[in-house]
C-alpha cells in the first residue's frame, strides 16, 4: 500500500479532516494507476482538478503516485482549505511544477472542456439545505460546507453532474465522484448512462454505518 501524504499542521475546525471517504479515494487512485496510464500514456500532462480539496491529501497523493506531470488545478469554496492545500503540498515536497489551488465553487472559474481528470468528494450528507457561503474569513461556519449536501445529500453533486459534459475535455474526460448509499448512487449511475456516459463503480466500502462508493464517469467515444 502506498503511503498516505502527511498533514500535520492543519486546523480541523476550519478544514475537513481526512476521514474514511478521503482514504477510500486514495485507495481508489492506487488501484486506478494502470488504467489511467493506459488512458493518457505515461509522462503525459493531463489537466487534473480536484473539486473541494479540503486538506489537499487526495490531490497530493495523485501528484505523487499517479500523475507526476499533470497540470493540477484544484479548487475549494473554503478559503481555509485553499491555504491548507498549500501547506500540505509543501509538507510533502511535491515536485510537480504545476500545482495550484483556486478558490471557487465547483469549476466555475476554469475554462470549459479543459479538465481531463476530475475528482470530487462532495458534501454528501443529506441535510435540510446546502449552507450559505459565509461572508468573512473569520466566520466559524466554513466547515459546514464540507458536509451538508441538501436533499438526498445530492444538491451540489447534481449541479456538477449536469455540467459534466461542459467541464470535461472532449478528448478523454474522466470524473471520479464519491457517494454514500443515501445518495442513491445506482439511480444516479443509471440516469448518467441514459445521458450517454460510461459509469462504473470502481471501489466501495462499509465505513461505520455508511456505505461509500466511488463512481467513474467517462465519455462514450463511439
Amino acid at each position, binding site marked *: 500500500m502506498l503511503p498516505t501524504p502527511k498533514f500535520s499542521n492543519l486546523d480541523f475546525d476550519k478544514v475537513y479532516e481526512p476521514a474514511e471517504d478521503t482514504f477510500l479515494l486514495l485507495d481508489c487512485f492506487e488501484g486506478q494507476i494502470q488504467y489511467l496510464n493506459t488512458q493518457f500514456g505515461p*509522462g*503525459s500532462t493531463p489537466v487534473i482538478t480536484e473539486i473541494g480539496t479540503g486538506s489537499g491529501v487526495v490531490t497530493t497523493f495523485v501528484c505523487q503516485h499517479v500523475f507526476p*506531470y499533470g497540470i493540477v488545478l484544484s479548487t475549494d469554496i473554503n478559503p481555509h482549505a485553499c491555504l491548507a492545500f*498549500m501547506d500540505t503540498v509543501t509538507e510533502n515536497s511535491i515536485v510537480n511544477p*504545476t500545482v495550484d489551488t483556486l478558490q471557487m465553487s465547483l469549476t*466555475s*472559474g476554469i475554462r470549459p472542456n*479543459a479538465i481531463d481528470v476530475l475528482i470530487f468528494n462532495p458534501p454528501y450528507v443529506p441535510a435540510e439545505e446546502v449552507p450559505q*457561503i459565509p461572508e468573512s474569513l473569520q466566520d466559524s461556519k466554513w466547515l459546514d460546507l464540507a458536509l451538508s449536501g441538501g436533499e438526498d445529500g445530492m444538491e451540489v453533486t447534481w449541479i456538477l453532474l449536469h455540467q459534466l459534459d461542459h467541464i470535461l475535455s472532449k478528448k478523454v474526460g474522466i470524473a471520479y465522484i464519491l457517494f454514500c448509499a443515501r445518495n442513491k448512487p445506482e439511480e444516479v449511475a443509471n440516469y448518467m448512462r441514459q445521458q450517454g456516459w460510461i459509469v462504473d463503480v470502481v471501489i466501495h466500502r462499509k465505513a461505520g454505518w455508511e456505505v461509500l462508493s466511488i463512481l467513474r464517469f467517462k465519455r462514450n467515444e463511439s
Partner: protein
Amino acid sequence: MKFLTTNFVKCAIKTCDSSIDAFPLQYTECELVQQEQDYNPEFIVHMLERIQWDALISVARDLGNDGLPANKPEGLDAIIEDDQAILKDLHTLLLETHIVNGKMTCKHCNHVYHIKNSIPNFLLPPHLA
C-alpha cells in the same frame, strides 16, 4: 498562482460563458515573484499541447512581457539548441513566475477578481452566483 494557470481560468459568471471575452482575463496591479523550479524540457513540450497561445500572449502583455513569438512554436525538440532557449524561456515564464497579488478583470462583464497570497478567488457574491 502560477502564470500557467492564467491559461485555464475565466470569468465565473454564467452569462459570460458564451462570450469569447471571458477568457483570458485581464491582469492588472500584479505583484510577481520568481520561484525556481526543476527544469524539465520534455514536460514543457507536452504542456504546450494544452496551451492556448493567443491567451498566453495576451496575459504576458498585461504583465509587461512582449517577447513571445506570435505563433505557438510547434515540434520543439529538447535536444536542439535553439529549441532549448525557447523551452527555457517558457519554463521561466509559465512555471517559475507566480502572481502573488493582483486583479483579474473579465473583459466582457468587467467583474473584478482578486489574487491574494497567491490564491485567486472566483467566488461570486450571491446575486451573481
